[in-house]
């Protein structure tokens, strides 16, 4: 693939991001309520003079369009502003949390794709078999279960009945001075339930999708060719068919990424996972506008990046698209 394509794609992504910034800003500033009162309230009540000095400090006494221009200018320089609630730059708040969110989302994504595709391929081998029926039912169930409810049920189950997995947080604070590998195991241990909860919806969808996709591919002429060559069943399934069946899965994986972030928001809340989703939720409740905007910005950026990566891998996986733009 050409680098000019990548460049164009990235440029377009940046343009989308700019749109996101403008939209968020206008939306939030046009909403009812005085941010200065919000800030003062968080400090524990304030006088009119304090409100005035807060307005001054956060530039809230300027016209909205001027504020927008300033904000966009700042964002372009990588400055997302100061949180209304925390006495910290939004970028630091997000930097503290983006890692855990990415860890959760990527783990869930990989988990759901790996397991889902595996189930789907197995099911596709016998379209009328028991496994196939299971995948169909499981897919519908996985789709219908509210993700936060699954999380809660897992907490009930694992909190006391089977306390083999931690049900809250990402790390045992008492291990924060332990060796790196102990900490890594500890984090992975904490990751199991949240990642599984998040993965389960998509796992079901990937299973269903890859089953359908595999069935389609398995009926195609080149699979017959592969069999006619004398290729083994394993090679037919996992080499010849899966490479082709993976294309729609990739597309969906890219499109799902936004939903995955939405799901992560709920899962983080349920499992007290120290990620961006919870920051977003808390900031919305606190009317911490700069933080909300920052999180929306980063979340959209993650979607844009995921889409670009999907595009790239799609082109890698499907030679027919290479060299085309």
């Amino acid at each position, binding site marked *: 693939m050409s680098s000019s394509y990548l460049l164009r794609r990235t440029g377009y992504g940046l343009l*989308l*991001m700019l*749109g*996101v910034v403008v*939209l*968020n800003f206008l*939306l*939030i500033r046009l*909403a*009812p309520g005085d941010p200065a009162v919000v800030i003062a309230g968080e400090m524990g009540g304030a006088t009119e003079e304090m409100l005035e000095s807060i307005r001054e400090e956060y530039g809230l006494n300027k016209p909205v369009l001027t504020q927008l221009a300033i904000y966009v200018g700042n964002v372009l320089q990588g400055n997302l502003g100061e949180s209304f609630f925390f006495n910290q730059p939004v970028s630091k708040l997000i930097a503290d949390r983006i890692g855990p969110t990415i860890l959760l989302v990527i783990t869930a994504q990989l988990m759901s794709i790996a397991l889902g595709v595996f189930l789907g391929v197995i099911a596709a081998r016998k*379209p*009328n078999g028991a496994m196939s029926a299971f995948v169909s039912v499981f897919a*519908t*169930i996985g*789709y*219908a*279960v*509210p*993700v*936060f*409810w699954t999380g*809660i*049920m897992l*907490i*009930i189950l694992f*909190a*006391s009945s089977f306390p083999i997995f931690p049900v809250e947080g990402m790390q045992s604070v008492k291990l924060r001075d332990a060796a790196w590998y102990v900490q890594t195991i500890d984090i992975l241990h904490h990751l199991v339930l949240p990642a599984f909860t998040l993965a389960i919806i998509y796992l079901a969808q990937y299973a269903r999708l890859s089953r359908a996709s595999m*069935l389609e591919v398995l009926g195609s002429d080149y699979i017959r060719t592969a069999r006619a060559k004398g290729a083994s069943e394993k090679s037919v399934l996992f080499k010849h068919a899966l490479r082709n069946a993976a294309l729609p899965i990739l597309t969906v994986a890219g*499109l799902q990424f*936004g*939903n995955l*972030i*939405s*799901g992560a*928001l*709920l899962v983080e*809340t349920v499992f007290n996972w120290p990620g961006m*989703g919870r920051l*977003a*939720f808390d900031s*919305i*409740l606190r*009317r911490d506008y700069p933080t*909300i905007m920052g*999180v*929306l910005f980063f*979340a*959209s950026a993650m*979607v*844009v990046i995921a*889409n670009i990566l999907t595009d790239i891998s799609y082109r890698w996986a499907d030679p027919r698209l290479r060299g085309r733009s």
Partner: protein
Amino acid sequence: MTDQTTQSSYKAESPALEAWRMFRRNIPALVGVALLAVIVGATLYGTFFYAGDPFEVVWAPHEPPGVTPDFPLGTDYLGRNLMAGMLTGGGPTLTVGAAAAAITMVIGITLGALAGYYGGWVDNLLMRITEFFQVLPALLFAMVLVTLFSPSLWTIAIAIGVVSWPQTARLTRAEFLKIKELEYVTAARAIGARNKRIIWRVILPNAMPPLIVSATLTIGVAILFEAGLSFLGLGDPNVMSWGLMIGANREYILDAWWPVTFPGLAIFFTVFAVSLIGDGLNDAFNPKLRER
């Protein structure tokens, strides 16, 4: 098998009839219809048989289910009747689901149809807007909308609609791109039909099957969405809904599993039913899958 390619010349049926015949034979889909009928029925008429104010404190908090015959599902953290909550809580959930799906379909179909039919700069512009909305993480954006404009059933439905339409728009556009090249569209144009008529009277009806399937699934998604928002405490607090019940009782899950479990199951079964129906419709409309 190639040996069957000629069957159509022997047995001709109208597509709708054929689809209905397929659907009627699809047992999971029928299960879905039955399940949904039970849920909707209970929501609409349940209070005739079991009256109760879901907000009223009627009993000791956290009475387990099955202990007091008056409160078969037990009580919540305030001592409110869960059975009453379950019966009245479905209404808002289903209403928001249906309304949000309707909003999604209206926006999605309109934009998708215009983009697909006119192509060119219209298509370009509308697709850029669609992409833009696809980049925004839906739940997050809906949360912002709901809090900024204060939560009520309407704002929730609108927020869900506003964040969910892009997929429908894409689907509609794809269908329109396909159908507008077909002979009968050319024929309609040849006899001088106006664009408006071609879009809404000629192409849209033929694009409906996948859109109906998509609408069904959108209802399910919207219900889950409403539940998620309510769970986070962003639902309308003056209206008892299943999501609200889960969110309100979540703090106490270690002591009482039932106030969270029952509404969760209700949401699950509703969405399950809806998606079974959606799958059934999909199979019925999509002849390629019939053999499977």
